[in-house]
């Protein structure tokens, strides 16, 4: 018998037109639907908005931004980019998941390469054609309508390029992932897990460490590779990372090529009898099983920790439940059976490993928790609730000199005494309290050897007042909180003083002498502030805004204790110009606070025109008794109506009902009930 009948040989080629044609015939509807959606979202939408865009600059920009795939507001398109290639890959390679289909496909006279490349080409055609057609329609509209005022041909080309790039990349990833499983649902699930696992695991691990390791800081330099995970990046639709660069495009393309290549290799070594299995390669079954166990364990710990208490028993209980659930679910999926008890040994080994790790964490084997540097080793220390000022300062120097971000939320200490005080505070913070409250503060040491030591603790200002007092009263702290202390006098352009209770025009100082005098007094007052004064909640209505030559302004409250500043303002005659006088208040309305769910219009209220009572209300200082949010049932809402040139101006405050007040005012308050 002659096996090589000429002209009858199935040519060994990279792809088969028969296969591609059959794929296109079977799955054309995916491409058609995709194209239809794209046309609806883009050209049609643009046409509908055409008229509006002629008049409105925002509408024009919105249309342009709809073509920005990465940084715009194109959620719908991005959703399609995240879904369509994955669905296509799942459909095209679904034959690998049933033994009937796989036997049929693989008995065809084609090598595996041929099958693989043919299906991939068919998929790419179905992804490229709709996008290309949409781009052509967009280009056509651009040439024939006024849409060319909204966006250019270049915008369309960029849209085309980026959409194709991400479609290709996500298709490649989906094909790649599909080679490792023999189940279509698992294919879809694994695909998205593959995209989000790095960031999810990162979050979970950090969250769990924060709860288990006292003082652990989930510090990162803000610029990790996790930001560049393509699906996250697209879904985020943010300009945070800037426009996509050519380097990044090359990287994504390279990744796509790599995924296609590795997928082909995996396809060639894949055993076809694994159709239907959740994991096609025996080597990866333990990876899957223990990977799922770890993820569900961390999730369980995080869930129980956040729902109940962040204590060791609760979290380890969450771990136990989570890992049990994950381990046995994975085992059942792998064996496709509920009778999986024989696998208990694997779980015991896993549990033992985790127990050892947790014991290590609990006993602080690495000394992480108790590591506090000797003050002598410390070059400087940063203390604050916000990590970004430190990051900008230490990691990215390219921050504008005048940016407010530099000042807010964090303080540097370089004076040896101050460093010593922060270290002393740190020693106190090491004792984990029963109930943690207060804002989480970073303590970041820059050691003399150049290393950083980063910790984070909730700092309750009442609990740690004795240790905080010397820190807060230090000049370095005050310089951080009140930039005026270190501000160059020459850089101050103007100072604006205004009572926020009245519409009266503010006083604006531009005279150098006056600026110098006021700044000098303000500095003295700030330097003399005590810890208690710094922490007290006061109601001060007069603002001093210092604006520098760059136009940045920083507001300071004129505290009641700033008698030297008030005195100077009075001496200059400015105080009377701006301050609200009792006589300017026409009347006051007291309102009982609304019950939750009650219509505010139904609140009982009482009007006061008695001058004495008005004056008493005006100078009431209820803040000492303030809770976090001074409102609710025990409070009275006070509205002051002030005479203004354009009618009435009003401001308001809340006072507790049980505040000690004159009998006259008490009578009014009682009328509310």
């Amino acid at each position, binding site marked *: *018998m002659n096996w090589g009948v000429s002209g009858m*040989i199935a040519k*060994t080629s990279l792809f088969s037109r028969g296969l591609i044609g*059959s794929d296109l*015939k079977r799955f054309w509807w995916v491409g058609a639907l995709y194209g239809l959606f794209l046309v609806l979202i883009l050209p049609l939408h643009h046409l509908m908005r055409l008229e509006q865009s002629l008049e409105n600059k925002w509408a024009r920009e919105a249309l342009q931004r709809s073509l920005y795939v990465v940084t715009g507001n194109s959620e719908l398109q991005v959703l399609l980019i995240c879904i369509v290639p994955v669905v296509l890959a799942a459909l095209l390679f679904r034959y690998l998941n049933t033994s009937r289909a796989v036997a049929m496909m*693989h*008995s065809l006279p084609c*090598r595996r390469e041929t099958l693989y490349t043919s299906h991939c080409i068919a998929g790419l055609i179905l992804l490229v054609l709709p996008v290309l057609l949409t781009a052509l329609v967009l280009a056509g509209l651009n040439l024939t309508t006024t849409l060319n005022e909204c966006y250019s041909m270049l915008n369309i080309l960029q849209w085309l390029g980026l959409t194709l790039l991400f479609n290709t990349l996500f298709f490649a990833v989906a094909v790649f992932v599909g080679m490792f499983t023999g189940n279509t649902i698992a294919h879809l699930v694994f695909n998205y897990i593959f995209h989000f696992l790095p960031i999810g695991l990162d979050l979970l691990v950090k969250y769990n460490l924060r709860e288990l390791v006292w003082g652990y800081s989930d510090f990162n330099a803000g610029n990790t590779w996790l930001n560049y995970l393509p699906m996250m990046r697209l879904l985020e639709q943010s300009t945070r990372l800037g426009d996509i660069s050519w380097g990044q495009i090359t990287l994504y393309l390279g990744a796509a090529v790599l995924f296609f290549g590795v997928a082909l290799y995996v396809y060639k070594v894949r055993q076809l*009898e694994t159709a239907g299995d959740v994991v096609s390669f025996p080597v990866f079954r333990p990876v899957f099983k223990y990977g799922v166990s770890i993820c569900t364990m961390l999730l369980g710990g995080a869930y129980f920790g956040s729902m109940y208490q962040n204590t060791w028993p609760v979290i380890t209980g969450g771990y136990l439940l989570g890992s049990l659930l994950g381990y046995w679910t994975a085992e059942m999926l792998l064996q496709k059976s509920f009778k999986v008890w024989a696998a208990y040994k694997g779980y015991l080994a896993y549990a033992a490993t985790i127990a050892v790790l947790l014991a290590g964490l609990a006993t602080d084997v690495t000394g992480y928790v108790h590591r506090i540097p000797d003050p002598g080793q410390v070059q400087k220390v940063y203390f604050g609730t916000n990590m970004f000022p430190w990051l900008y300062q230490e990691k990215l120097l390219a921050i504008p000199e005048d940016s407010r971000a530099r000042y807010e939320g964090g303080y540097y200490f370089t004076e040896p005494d101050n460093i010593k005080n922060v270290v002393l505070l740190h020693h106190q913070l090491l004792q984990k309290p029963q109930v943690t409250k207060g804002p989480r503060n970073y303590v970041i040491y820059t050691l003399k050897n150049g290393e950083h030591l980063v910790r984070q603790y909730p700092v309750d200002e009442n609990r740690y007042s004795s240790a905080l007092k010397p820190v807060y009263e230090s000049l370095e702290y005050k310089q951080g909180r009140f930039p005026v202390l270190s501000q160059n006098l020459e850089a101050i352009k103007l100072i604006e003083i205004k009572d926020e209770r009245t519409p009266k025009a503010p006083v604006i100082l531009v005279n150098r002498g006056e600026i110098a005098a006021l700044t000098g007094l303000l500095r003295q007052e700030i330097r003399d502030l005590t810890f208690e004064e710094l922490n007290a909640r006061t109601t001060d209505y007069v603002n001093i805004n210092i604006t520098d030559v760059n136009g940045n302004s920083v507001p300071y409250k004129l505290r009641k204790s700033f008698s030297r500043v008030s005195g100077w303002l009075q001496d200059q005659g400015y105080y009377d110009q701006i301050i609200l006088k009792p006589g300017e208040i026409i009347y006051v309305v007291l309102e009982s606070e609304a019950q939750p769910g009650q219509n505010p219009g139904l609140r009982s209220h009482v009007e006061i025109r008695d001058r004495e009572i008005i004056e008493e209300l005006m100078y009431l200082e209820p803040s000492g008794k303030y809770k976090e949010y001074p409102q609710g049932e025990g409070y009275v809402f006070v509205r002051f109506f002030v005479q203004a040139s354009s009618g009435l101006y009003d401001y308001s405050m809340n006072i507790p009902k049980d505040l000690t007040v004159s009998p006259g005012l008490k009578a009014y308050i009682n009328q509310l009930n």
Partner: protein
Amino acid sequence: MIDVKNLSKTFGRFQALANLNLQVKEGSVYGLLGPNGAGKTTLIKHLAGVYRPDGGTITIGGQPVYENPQLKARIAYIPDDLFFFSQANIEETAKFYSRLYPAWDEERYQRLKQVFAIDPRRRITRLSKGMQKQVAFWLGICLLPQVMLLDEPVDGLDPVMRKKVWSLILQDVAERQTTVLVSSHNLRELEDVCDHVGILHNGELLLEKDLDGLMTDIHKLQLAFSGEVPAGLLSGETVLHREQNGSVLLLIVRGEREKVLAQAQKANPLILDLLPLTLEEIFIYELGGVGYDCQNILI
């Protein structure tokens, strides 16, 4: 033609095929027998180039079959469990195969429309199981294969269609020297068509036989005597089985037909009948111990 050497395959911990050896001559029809789970389908999927062997070699016409498109283009594989694209009708599926198999015979396809009498515009997945099987044969025959691999082929076909299909295939065997390997768990189905039979059990080939040879040298005799059954009857021959019921004796004997009959005549039986043997009986008696195993295996 088909030459399988030391083929082995495991699925996880389950050994599906163990050092299997099998030869099928060109132009012959080889019946592969075995109970469910014996490894028939696994073996056929290896022959079709679907599975990659764990060990051993499979060649057809001297060439390895795995990842060999030229060779696979001449193999028609009709699985037990058929798969067709869910939306496609017969016409479209025929077109699909015609583009992938260079030897596709369009004329034959058109001619066979009369034999199968199914509207080619019907969606295949909507057809009954038996009709789908007919479509598979229809298309398979049109590939002008040199080798046909048929896994439980006549399952679901009505007797008339069975006959038609076999006659088509056997015609190809006769005219084009097509080699056919056909599996079944039912020996009777294969009796009429196979010239060789192999029995597969637990992944191993228990035995292989040429049916023509088998048929000629095993005989079933029924003898009745007026008195006692004489002792030493047919002592010179190999008696595979002996069953006595009063004065009636049933013997399965191996040997030349004439010689056996002559021996039997010597004992002067009242009646001497030479009864036809079924293939099943031949297997069971021929194989003795192994054969009794087979009795449980074969239905």
